[in-house]
């Protein structure tokens, strides 16, 4: 039985849970009260709107790519335009959407509440990082509009030094620089908040797993992102001053650029997936109404993934002509990351065992995540195996693999988390049945888009091709059909959420039966989250949390 089917008791009728008359959304009003807010919840919501818009933009580019590839040649874009489109798709999705999506949007909203504090440690810095993000967005749009960036999102030298789109490269690299600092400050803020502001009783091992994941993510953000900063700064200097560090014409070495770039960009993959794993840990336990299986293993594995993630960047460069020893060492280290990821999947399944599984929209997204992420993780194995990577590198197999991890993983978890916490953020319930339909469409569309790409890849279809051999056309068409389906699914999800804003019924304090602290404060939460420090218990203790028809949600019974 999903929540939507349950008897609805309108809090307005005087019964049921107290719907707060006063909450953070109506605490103050006016444009400036949002633009200058120091409230982490409002900043989180602003991020949410921002990253979703970026996602829409990036998604539009994705559909353009897929439609162009419908025919093996003479697509509707010129080669040059196609190159710009895939570059912008990648750059926007990575830098503007996936990296900030969960930490900055959901993390900002949830972290202080889950932790039981009033705000993050540095609220102004938090607002500052939001405006840095906005600046990055503007710079990216500039890069898009002045000439169109065509370097690929990786900015590999010497192409990025030689390309005629100099202005675009400069705008984009500066954008990446600024976005990097936005990400650093968010991470810094979270680490300080978690380290110094836990209320009494909130020990490290009483923190919800989402916070563990966010903490691990923040470590990466603080340690890896500065290297990206200096990399793009040197690249800009390369363009402006011809410094030659990465330019083979001046005896510089393009492979050095790749080392610099991937020292950040590989850990960045974990900036993307770790918070997603955190969300899934929350979703699985709440919607199974059962304590998480192997709490400590999940917590440790998050930190392990974050640290191991720094040791494996070389696997993006196996074919670049790295020294053999380095190649083999990187391959060995690469496999170490797969173990903690596998452990998490098993633990989530263990959580379902003998639980009480509520099938609703967030849970469906979580289950879709496990399915898709397992495929994404397992297809990493052939890519980590050196001999096989020689064949698969830079083919569609890689494209499919990282879309399974980043999109099937991060995006699906983001959507699951969004549906899960939507009632908390907006105080409105969405239509659960249509939500579940959206999850189903997304799931089918996603697999239809990317499964064929695995086959394309093993058969030798290189990535970033505007035209291709005729023999690959059927699989490409299948993929294009899938991408349209996926687009429809995402659109349905968006409509469900928007619909709820206007027509959704008021959300109870605890609509899903969660035991973490955000389900203690009202939906939406009051301005200060907690008037007094809340009593902290086990975040996964579901004993006595019962559905209460009167309230339309769950309450803790003694």
């Amino acid at each position: 039985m999903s929540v939507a089917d349950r008897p609805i008791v309108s809090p307005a009728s005087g019964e049921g849970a107290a719907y707060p008359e006063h909450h953070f959304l109506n605490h103050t009003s006016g444009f400036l009260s949002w633009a200058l807010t120091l409230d982490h919840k409002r900043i989180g919501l602003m991020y949410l709107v921002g990253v979703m818009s970026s996602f829409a933009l990036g998604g539009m580019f994705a559909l353009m790519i897929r439609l162009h590839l419908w025919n093996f040649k003479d697509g509707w874009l010129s080669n040059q335009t196609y190159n710009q489109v895939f570059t912008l798709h990648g750059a926007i999705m990575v830098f503007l959407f996936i990296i900030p999506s969960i930490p900055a949007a959901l993390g900002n909203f949830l972290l202080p509440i889950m932790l039981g504090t009033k705000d993050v440690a540095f609220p102004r810095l938090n607002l500052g990082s939001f405006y840095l993000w906005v600046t990055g967005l503007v710079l990216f749009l500039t890069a898009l509009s002045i000439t169109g960036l065509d370097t690929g999102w990786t900015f590999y030298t010497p192409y990025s030094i030689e390309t005629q789109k100099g202005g675009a490269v400069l705008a984009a690299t500066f954008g990446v620089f600024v976005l990097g600092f936005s990400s650093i400050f968010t991470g810094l803020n979270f680490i300080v908040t978690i380290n110094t502001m836990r209320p009494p009783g909130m020990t490290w091992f009483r923190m919800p797993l989402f916070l563990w994941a966010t903490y691990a993510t923040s470590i990466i953000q603080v340690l890896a992102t500065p290297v990206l900063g200096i990399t793009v700064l040197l690249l800009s200097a390369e363009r402006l001053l011809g410094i030659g560090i990465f330019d083979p014409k001046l005896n510089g070495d393009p492979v050095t650029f790749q080392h610099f770039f991937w020292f950040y960009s590989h850990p960045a993959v974990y900036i993307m997936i770790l918070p997603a794993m955190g969300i899934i840990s929350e979703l699985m336990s709440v919607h199974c109404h059962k304590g998480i299986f192997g709490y400590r293993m999940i917590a440790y594995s998050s930190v392990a993934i974050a640290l191991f993630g720094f040791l494996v960047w070389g696997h993006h460069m196996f074919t670049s002509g790295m020294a053999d020893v380095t190649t083999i060492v990187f391959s060995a280290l690469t496999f170490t990351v797969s173990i903690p990821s596998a452990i998490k999947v098993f633990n989530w399944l263990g959580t379902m065992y003998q639980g009480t599984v509520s099938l609703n929209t967030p849970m469906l997204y979580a289950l879709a995540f496990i399915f898709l992420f397992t495929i994404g993780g397992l297809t990493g194995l052939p890519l980590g195996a050196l001999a096989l990577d020689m064949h698969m590198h830079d083919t569609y197999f890689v494209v499919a693999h990282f879309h399974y991890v980043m999109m099937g993983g991060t995006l699906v978890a983001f959507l699951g988390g969004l549906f899960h916490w939507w009632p908390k953020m907006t105080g409105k319930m969405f239509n659960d049945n249509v939500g579940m339909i959206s999850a189903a469409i997304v799931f089918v569309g996603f697999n239809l888009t990317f499964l064929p790409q695995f086959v394309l890849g093993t058969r030798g279809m290189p990535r970033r091709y505007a035209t291709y051999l005729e023999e690959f056309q059927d699989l490409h068409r299948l993929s294009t059909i899938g991408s349209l389906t996926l687009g429809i699914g995402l659109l349905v999800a968006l409509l469900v959420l928007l619909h709820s804003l206007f027509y959704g019924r008021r959300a109870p304090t605890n609509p899903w039966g969660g035991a973490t602290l955000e389900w203690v404060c009202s939906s939406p939460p009051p301005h200060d989250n907690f008037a007094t420090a809340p009593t902290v218990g086990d975040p996964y203790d579901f004993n006595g949390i019962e559905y209460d028809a009167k309230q339309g949600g769950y309450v803790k019974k003694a």
Partner: protein
Amino acid sequence: MPIWMLLAVFFALLILTGLTVYQSQFDLGNAEIWLSLTIATVKAALVILFFMHLLWDKPLNAIVILGSLIFVALFLGFTLMDAEGYRENLIYKSTVKASQPGAKGDEIDN
């Protein structure tokens, strides 16, 4: 922190700077870079421990800053290890040596 300690640290730093300038006048070969880096590290340690009060600070802050050095070492270590490995393939080196197999057939039309 008492004034005498501030001044003592400052003069120690000055003396070490003088030392590093002085030693650079001798040709010590490979040892030189290690010697000057060691002196620099001693100076850096003085700055961090005393001027930045890390000696009296919470251990967490020390872990944070020392931890970051581990990641710097990782970054430099792997990148240098790789660069060392493929050095032979760089064109300007291999042209000079001419012993590089295969390079011979690759002369550019001129």
